[in-house]
């Protein structure tokens, strides 16, 4: 058994007092009449959330809950050219010894908390469905993972980092699940370490590479099929949603991918600024998920109290945009499963995805948004069980770890 260093979140008292002092001195802006969500996060929501954060919201209770329900650890991992990074991760093994090892990678503005609902479902043993051993790290600069200290931390470094993590835990062959940055990173992982280590990948965020010509060259017949197949109504709706998001919702992306440090002074110093910045995405980004105020505040608190501070979390946009890896996601022959959730903001045409990737599993849902693992845990786990279960298209991809 590989040795692990257990970790418990323990935010110091002075950090909590500082937060309270800042909240007490919050200076709110005005707002245009009838703004709704048009201009950004609504003032009435922010007022209510700040009031709750100041009085009523109990961070210690949520910290206890996270510590209780999520088995967390830290581990030093060396990345070529970047030295040692101390990584924070959740690791839960199933009682089923032959469970499928799965690496779950979160994105922004998510965190390791996104694994919390699917964790008990994935690790549960069962006669009819496969079981999983789950590893869910915090990206460098998120949660309690150390941030990279030098510029140039690219996709290949994330891949190296997470592959080493899995290997160090005794999982030399594994599968991956990811949305948002998790999708980009697991794709790079698959292209770099598959099929030797990464045997299959699943995603809930279907994006295509912008390297359309490359896709054509790689799979001309499939590409031709894409050109000839009319879009389904669902696809059209999804693409319309994407276009709207590109037009009105990419301000954060433009800022984070060009001047993350400048933004970082705001996010690190102003709790209400950080709250508004993140809530703008998690509020409307779901499919009417009934966020409680305390849930929202916990999501934001993880950023506020994070080891590296909120600013560090935005650098991934800068690095992976500069390297273009976020746009030109690599092709991979590793079997891929895709779950389509209707309110996801990034959509790509089905046929193009099939031309680009080795798609072996697809699942269309009638409800759910960007944060699928958190909004629709049963649906997502069901998809993974079907993909990897007996008779599934990726059954037994990990030798000796069929899930049973």
């Amino acid at each position, binding site marked *: 058994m590989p040795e692990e260093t257990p970790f418990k979140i323990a935010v110091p008292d002075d950090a909590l007092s*500082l937060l309270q*002092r*800042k909240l007490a*001195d*919050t*200076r*709110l*802006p*005005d*707002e*245009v*009449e*009838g*703004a709704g969500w*048009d*201009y*950004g*996060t*609504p*003032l009435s929501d922010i007022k209510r959330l700040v009031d709750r954060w100041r009085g009523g919201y109990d961070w210690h209770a949520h910290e206890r809950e996270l510590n209780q329900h999520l088995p967390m650890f830290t581990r030093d991992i060396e990345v070529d050219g970047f030295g040692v990074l101390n990584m924070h991760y959740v690791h839960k093994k199933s009682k089923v010894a032959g469970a499928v090892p799965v690496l779950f990678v979160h994105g922004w503005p998510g965190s390791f908390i996104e694994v919390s609902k699917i964790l008990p479902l994935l690790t549960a043993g069962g006669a009819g469905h496969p079981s999983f051993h789950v590893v869910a790290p915090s990206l460098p600069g998120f949660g309690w993972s150390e*941030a*990279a*200290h*030098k*510029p140039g931390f690219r996709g290949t470094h994330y891949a190296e980092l997470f592959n080493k993590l899995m290997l160090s835990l005794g999982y030399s062959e594994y599968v991956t699940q990811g949305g948002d940055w998790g999708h980009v990173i697991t794709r790079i992982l698959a292209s770099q370490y598959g099929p030797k280590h990464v045997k299959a990948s699943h995603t809930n965020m279907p994006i295509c590479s912008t390297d359309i010509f490359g896709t054509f060259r790689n799979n001309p017949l499939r590409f031709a099929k894409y050109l000839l197949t009319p879009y389904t109504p669902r696809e059209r709706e999804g693409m319309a949603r994407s276009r709207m998001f590109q*037009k*009105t*919702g*990419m*301000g*954060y992306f*433009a*800022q*984070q*991918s*060009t*001047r*993350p*440090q*400048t*933004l*970082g*002074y*705001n*996010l*690190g*110093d*102003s709790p*209400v*600024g*950080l709250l*508004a*910045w993140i809530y*703008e995405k998690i509020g409307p980004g779901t499919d009417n998920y009934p966020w409680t105020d305390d849930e929202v505040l916990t999501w934001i608190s993880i950023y506020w109290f994070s080891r*590296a*501070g909120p*600013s*560090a979390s935005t*650098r991934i946009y*800068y690095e992976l945009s500069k390297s273009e890896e976020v746009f030109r996601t690599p092709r991979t022959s590793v079997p891929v499963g895709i779950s389509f959730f209707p309110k996801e903001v990034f959509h790509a045409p089905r046929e193009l995805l099939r031309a680009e990737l080795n798609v072996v599993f697809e699942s269309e849902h009638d409800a759910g948004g960007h944060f699928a693992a958190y909004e629709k845990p049963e649906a997502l786990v069901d998809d993974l069980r079907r993909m990897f279960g007996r008779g599934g298209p990726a059954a037994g991809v990990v030798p000796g770890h069929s899930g049973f």
Partner: protein
Amino acid sequence: MSSEQSFQIAVPDDALELLKRKLTDARFPDEVDEADWDFGAPLADIKRLINRWKDGYDWRTHESEFNKLPMFTRDIDVEGFGTLNVHYVHQKSVVEGAIPLLFVHGWPGSFIEVTKILPLLTAGGLDHPSFHVVAPSLPGYAWSSTVLKRGFRGKQYAELFNKLMISLGYNEYVTQGGDWGYYITRTLAAHHGPRNVKASHTNLPHASAPTFWASPVQYIKHLVLPYTALERQELAHHQEFVTRGRGYYLEQSTRPQTIGYSLSDSPIGMLAWIYEKLVAWSDSYPWTDDEVLTWVSIYWFSRAGPAASVRIYYEIGGSGETWDMPRPTVPFGASYFPKEFGSTPRTFMRGECNVVFESEHTSGGHFAAFENPQGLADDLRKMFGKNGPAAGVVSGRDGF
């Protein structure tokens, strides 16, 4: 419209105390090694500025300096938007026949941008014209009230400032503007020229490529003649802006409220947001810490708060609204400063506006009036002076 009220800035003590508390509790981010300016404003700069702002920088001194300027407020009605209270600087020249000039600032500037050229423009002289200068604060900036109804766009700014000039007895006047000031003065010229606006000058000469139908001569020249070395340099500078410097624009034009929370609540956040542009957009201007802090304090202590100032991006050209650059007929002057990221090749402005005056400088950037006041003042003197291309445009007020 009501009468003019003399105005003095008087930031309340509790506002200063709140700022001090926030500065004391400032929480700084980390920074990657050797980041320099690549990721945004450098940590060392921001730390130094915050420490100065907390201890050493004296707002009251600068406030008193501003209060020596002739400042006023005035109520002005704008159709559909009710009454706005406009804060402005108004300095008359000793020369009675001086040319009335409306100076319009932009973001992240303010009325402070007029302070260096004010004495130059209003000075009498035998060999150069003199000006009466009016420099308002845009709604939502400094001590002008803000608009809380959506849809306040070019036409409304034009109406507001045209009414301001007329209320001051300047039925005919000329304009000078950069940044938003350029867009606003161009709209003013289109809607209220040549009746009220007789000529316009800009230090952000930005236009679209000439089309054959609209400006055949410029179209052909653009097609046939190569760009000059300076134009190529400007284009490269512009490209840099487009690829790496537009994050603020995309955020402010789509989600001004969201960024507004940070700008209102965090002095270090707001400082960094503005400071990045003060340095990036100027031509190695040797900003002193106190200069930066004064520019930023105007936003921090502004009447409507910093969030109000970025709404203009949303309302005009943001979130799908049409970006209308009207074509005025009145004489236009264009000054090209080498580090102005918005300058376009000469044929562009010539194709869209009635350009009668052009000048090229070897130093200066986006904040021309502040960085190179003599250069800008000289241009205005040449444009409007005896035998200048816009001499005597304002009846009975030739500047002498």
